[in-house]
């Protein structure tokens, strides 16, 4: 499949990337009963949407399940073949742009012209961590959220806000803001592997003139300024 020639549509603009970390429920003051109902699948993931209205007008890249928050999400980015197979039908209902660096899309076995409209960006073979400056590629960084930073950069963003990039379990042992999948606390944590790329991303961002803010104040990522969503929206320092 031919890689996507990403258009530079956010010329020096701002982009918000929504990851899977549970802190977004705190950042948007989502009531406990709504969180519980979403986790128990009594409510859809889009039940969070009204509480996130303050960012509906922003340029949004949703990582993995975040595309189900609402049609105000502009891009869905994912990097795992398995995630795509598990959520293919739901993803087909997403009306934004679907972008992936999953290896399955690099092979001829996936039919590019079948109408699923998946844009493919290759994983940069020479640079596994950081932000890719090579067109048509992303740095994988061993996780989809960090790889989505390369997509934001290709789209032209010069200010990137990371939401739900917690990289650790919350006090209740939740790894995500939903229960579509959860990490098994008994298994070896993947977070050290996920965290490895961020110092390189920070260095690349500085060199490329990209400002990255972490809107997860309790995040284990310590290389970007941490701010609350309210402070970012109010333009507080």
């Amino acid at each position, binding site marked *: 499949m031919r890689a996507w*020639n990403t*258009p530079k*549509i*956010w*010329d*020096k*603009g701002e982009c918000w990337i929504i990851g899977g970390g549970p802190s977004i429920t705190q950042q948007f003051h989502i009531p406990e009963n709504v969180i519980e109902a979403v986790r128990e699948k009594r409510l859809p993931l889009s039940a969070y949407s009204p509480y996130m209205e303050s960012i*509906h*007008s922003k*340029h949004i890249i949703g990582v993995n399940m975040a595309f189900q928050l609402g*049609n*105000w999400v*502009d891009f869905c980015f994912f990097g795992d073949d398995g995630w795509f197979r598990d959520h*293919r*039908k739901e993803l*087909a*209902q*997403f*009306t*934004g*742009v679907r972008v992936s660096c999953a290896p399955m899309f690099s092979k001829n*076995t996936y*039919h590019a012209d*079948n*109408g*699923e*409209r998946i844009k493919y960006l290759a994983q940069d073979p020479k640079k596994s961590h950081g932000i890719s400056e090579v067109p048509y590629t992303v740095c994988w960084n061993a996780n989809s959220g960090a790889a989505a930073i390369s997509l934001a950069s290709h789209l*032209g963003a010069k200010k990137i806000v990371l939401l739900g990039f917690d990289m650790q379990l919350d006090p209740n042992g939740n790894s995500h803001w939903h229960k579509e999948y959860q990490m098994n606390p008994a298994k070896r944590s993947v977070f050290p592997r996920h965290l490895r790329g961020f110092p390189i991303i920070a260095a690349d961002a500085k060199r490329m003139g990209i400002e990255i803010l972490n809107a997860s104040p309790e995040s284990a990522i310590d290389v970007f300024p941490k701010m609350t969503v309210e402070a970012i929206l109010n333009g507080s320092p």
Partner: protein
Amino acid sequence: MAESKVTKKKKAVKKKVVEKKEPEITTSKTEVITPQIVVTPPGMCTWRKKEGATFRLSNGKKVKPNEVFKAYPREIPPAFRDLFELLEGDENAVERVITAPSKFAIGEREDGMFDVVDPDGKCINDVPLGKEDAEKLLLALST
């Protein structure tokens, strides 16, 4: 000296008023994309290689006689299908997935330029585009 300061202040006030009066440019949508039906090829099946020789699948994997393995139907050439027993799955099953139409459309601005917008009027492009560039962008995002 005092007069010039007053004049400057008056000018500044006038400028502020002018800035406030700038009309907001709005966009009206003009195009929509139709939904598509995706036909996904049959999924992975479980097979057993029948007695006889070792066989090499189209993906390069070697399977020995009596070996049970998983493979997509397309990986077993039709001419050699009789060498294999299908244990699980449907080699002819085709899944149809209806794909929602792209949310983006081209909108014409009051100033004669164009945006690519979603149903709520949110522009995906930060800088207004000429018609041709807007059409190219719509194509790049929605196909």
